[in-house]
C-alpha cells in the first residue's frame, strides 16, 4: 500500500532510539516550581494570588485575560514565594509565580459532569478553558479557542496528530502506547465538542508499534476512527502538512485549518482533555522527553509544569561532562537554553542535550542548487527570501508570500552552503509584517 504524505520535506536522521523504548516515568513532586504566566499564544494570564498565599495542586493561580488566553494552575501544594521575573525557556525574562512545596499533593479538582457523554458542548468547552489546556505539540494555542470555531466555518473532520516528526522526541509515541485508551477517549470527547463524525489518527510509519496498538484499541472499543499510517518525512507534524497528507486539502495562505473544515489536535492535548473532563484535573503535568547523547539516562518523564530543567536532568541521571548544548523542543525548531534553571512549560515537549563538536559553521555563497526550493513544504523560494531580507528589501518580501513560512528549518537543514536561510527569513517576516 502506498502511504500518504505531503509534497517536499526532508528526511533527517530520527535519533528516537535514545528513548522510544523507555516507559513513561512519573517524577516525584518537585520542592519548588516556577510557573510562567505566559505559556501559550495570546494574552498573558492575570495572576489572582499574592505572595505568601497557600495554594493547592490544580488551583487556579492566574486567569484568562481576553478571548485568546489561557488559565494557569498551581502544579503543587504549597506557598507562593514570589511573583517576579525569572528566566523563561523561550530566552527572555518573564513573569512567573514561584511556589514552594509545603505538603504533598492536595488536589483541587474542577467540577465535572458524571458522564461526559451527557454534558453539553458548552459545558465541556468551559471545563477545558478552566483546565488551562493548550496545544501541547509546541505552539501552545489555547484549546478552547480552537474548539469553538466561529459560525460559518463548519468543521467536518478531526485529526489526531500522532506524527511527532521532530527527531529525538518520543513523548507522544509513548503516550499512544501507554495511555492508548485515555487518548482515544480524549479524542472522542473532542469530536463530540466539535460535532464531527470523521476522525483520523495520523502516525508516521517509524512507529509501527503505536500504529498497531492504536488500531487494535480502536477496534476493541468500537470507535469509528481511521488510523492513517504516514510515510516518514519532516515536517509532517505541522498542521497544514498533516491535513494535506491525510485529507488532501490545502489550507489557504494566511488561513487556519478550520478554513478547510478541519481541527487538528496533538496526542498530548487530547490526553489532557481526557484528564480534565473525566477526572477534573487541570493541566499541571505533561510528558516530557529528556534525551540526547548529552544526558546519562534518556527518559520519558511525566512531570509537573514549572519543574526546572535542572531537576528533570537530574532525574535523568544528570548531564555528561562534555554536554555543551541544551535545547527545548526538537532539533529542527527547538530553542537553545543558556541556563538549566528555567522551568518546563506547557509547550515543553522535550529537552535535548547534545555534545556538539564543530561549533563554527562555514557559510559559503549560494550556488543556486535549488535544494531549498525542492524541500520547502510551503513551496517558497527560501534563497530568494533570505537574500531579499539580507538586502533589507522588505517591501518585496510580501510578493513572495514570506508570511506563509512555517520556519520548519528544512531549507537550512539541507543547504550545502550553510546559509542562515531561516534566520534571515525570520527577520524578513518581522520586518515585512
Amino acid at each position: 500500500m502506498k502511504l500518504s504524505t505531503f509534497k517536499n520535506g526532508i528526511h533527517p536522521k530520527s535519533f528516537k532510539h535514545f528513548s522510544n523504548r523507555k516507559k513513561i516515568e512519573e517524577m516525584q513532586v518537585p520542592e519548588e516550581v516556577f510557573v510562567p504566566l505566559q505559556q501559550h499564544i495570546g494574552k498573558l494570564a492575570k495572576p489572582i494570588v499574592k505572595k505568601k498565599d497557600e495554594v493547592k495542586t490544580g488551583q487556579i493561580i492566574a486567569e484568562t485575560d481576553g478571548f485568546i488566553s489561557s488559565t494557569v494552575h498551581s502544579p503543587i501544594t504549597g506557598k507562593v514565594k514570589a511573583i517576579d521575573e525569572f528566566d523563561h525557556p523561550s530566552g527572555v525574562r518573564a513573569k512567573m509565580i514561584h511556589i514552594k512545596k509545603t505538603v504533598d499533593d492536595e488536589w483541587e479538582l474542577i467540577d465535572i459532569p458524571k458522564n461526559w457523554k451527557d454534558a453539553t458542548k458548552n459545558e465541556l468547552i468551559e471545563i477545558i478553558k478552566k483546565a488551562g489546556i493548550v496545544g501541547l505539540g509546541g505552539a501552545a494555542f489555547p484549546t478552547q479557542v480552537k474548539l469553538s470555531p466561529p459560525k460559518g466555518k463548519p468543521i467536518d473532520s478531526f485529526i489526531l496528530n500522532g506524527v511527532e516528526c521532530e527527531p529525538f522526541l518520543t513523548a507522544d509515541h509513548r503516550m499512544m502506547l501507554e495511555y492508548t485508551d485515555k487518548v482515544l477517549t480524549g479524542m472522542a470527547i473532542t469530536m463530540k465538542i466539535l460535532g464531527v463524525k470523521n476522525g483520523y489518527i495520523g502516525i508516521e510509519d517509524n512507529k509501527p508499534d503505536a500504529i498497531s496498538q492504536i488500531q487494535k484499541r480502536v477496534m476493541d472499543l468500537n470507535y469509528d476512527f481511521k488510523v492513517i499510517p504516514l510515510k516518514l518525512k519532516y515536517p509532517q507534524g505541522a498542521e497544514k502538512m498533516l491535513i494535506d497528507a491525510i485529507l488532501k486539502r490545502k489550507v489557504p495562505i494566511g488561513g487556519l485549518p478550520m478554513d478547510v473544515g478541519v481541527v487538528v489536535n496533538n496526542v498530548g492535548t487530547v490526553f489532557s482533555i481526557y484528564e480534565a473532563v473525566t477526572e477534573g484535573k487541570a493541566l499541571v503535568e505533561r510528558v516530557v522527553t529528556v534525551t540526547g547523547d548529552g544526558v546519562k539516562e534518556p527518559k520519558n518523564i511525566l512531570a509537573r509544569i514549572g519543574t526546572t530543567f535542572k531537576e528533570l536532568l537530574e532525574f535523568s541521571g544528570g548531564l555528561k561532562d562534555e554536554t555543551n548544548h541544551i535545547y527545548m523542543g526538537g532539533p529542527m525548531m527547538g530553542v537553545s537554553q543558556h541556563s538549566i534553571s528555567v522551568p518546563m512549560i506547557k509547550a515543553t515537549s522535550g529537552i535535548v542535550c547534545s555534545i556538539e563538536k564543530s561549533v563554527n559553521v562555514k557559510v559559503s555563497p549560494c550556488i543556486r542548487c535549488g535544494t531549498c526550493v525542492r524541500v520547502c513544504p510551503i513551496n517558497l523560494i527560501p534563497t530568494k527570501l533570505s537574500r531579499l531580507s539580507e538586502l533589507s528589501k522588505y517591501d518585496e518580501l510580501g510578493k513572495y508570500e514570506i508570511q506563509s513560512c512555517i520556519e520548519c528549518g528544512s531549507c537550512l537543514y539541507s543547504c550545502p552552503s550553510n546559509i542562515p536561510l531561516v534566520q534571515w527569513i525570520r527577520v524578513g517576516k518581522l520586518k515585512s509584517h
Partner: protein
Amino acid sequence: MEEKSKTTNVKPKKKDPRAKLKKPNRIPMLLKSSPHLRSDYSIEKIMRGVLLALLPTTVLGVIFFGWYALLMIFVGIVSCVLTELIFNLVSGKKFKLTDGTSVLTGLLLVLTLPPSFPIPGVILGSVVAIFVGKMIFGGLGYNIFNPALLGRAFLQASYPVKMTTWTLPKYVGADAITGATPLGLFKFEHIMTNIKPLILGNIGGTIGETSALVILIGGIFILIKKYADWRIPLSYIGTVFILGGLFWLINPAQYPNPFFHIFAGGLMLGAFFMATDMVTSPITTKGSWIFGIGAGIVLITIRLLGGLPEGVMYSIIFMNGLVPLINRYTRPKVFGEVKK
C-alpha cells in the same frame, strides 16, 4: 547609571575568556538558532563527487590520447586555480581552494578540447573561463554562464582551426593521425558512424567526450548522489532524441537516427556535467524541465539546420542566459495559493 560609569572608567583587565567556563558547576552552553541538525550535503562534497564522477572519462581520455592529454588536464587545472588565486589576491579577498570549483572548471574545460590542442591555448582558455566566466561576476555562485563552456567558446573563436583538428585515439590508427568526429563526418561527408564505437569511444572527439558509456556511469553516479538535478539530463537528452527522431522519420536518408544523436559528440558530457552546473541552471523544478527541453531544441537546430556539426556548447550557453527569466516565471505555486 552608576554602574555603567564605573565600568567605563575602569580599564578592563585582560582576562582569559575561558576562565568563566572553567569554573566548576558551570557548563559552557552553546546558544544558537534552530535548526540544530544539518545534513552532510555541502559544496565541497558536491564538487568532490562530481570530480570523482569525471574520473572514468578522464582516465579513458588519457588512455586514448596519451600523455599529452594528461599534460593538458594538468595545465588546465593549474591555470584555473592560479587565475582564481591571483584574482582574489588582487581584489583583496580571501582565497579558498577547498571548495574545488576552479579545479572542476579546469578539468571540464580540457575535457571539451581536442586532444592535440596547443598548451598556450589551454592556458588562455582557463584564464578566460575563470576570469571572464566567473570572477568578474562576483565569484562562485554569481556567474551567469558556465565558466568552462565560456572558456571553450572563446577558444572556438580564437583557435578555429585547432579546435576542429581531431587526433584519433591510439587504438584506431597510428599515433597522431587526424580524422573527423562522427558528427563532422556526418555533417560534411554524410558518413554514418556505427553506434558501438560511439558507446565505447574509439572515435575522434574531444578528450572527455568519446565514450558515451563511461560518461553515463559517472553521470548516473551524480544523479543518484543528488549532486545534479536528474530532470536536466533527462529532458535535454530526451528532447534531442525525440526531435532528432522526428527529423529521421521524415527523411531517414538525410538525417541521422536519434541514437546517433544522443551518443555522438558532446551531448552526454554536456547533459550530465555542464548543463547540470548548479550555479547556471534554474532553481525551480519546472525551470529545470524548461532548461533541458530548450537546450535540446537549440542543439537539434544547430546540428541539423545550422552550419556547425555540434551545438552542445552553444545550446547550454544560450539556456544559461535565460535562467534568470526561467526562474522568475516558474516560481512554484505557494502552498494554499488560490489561482486568480
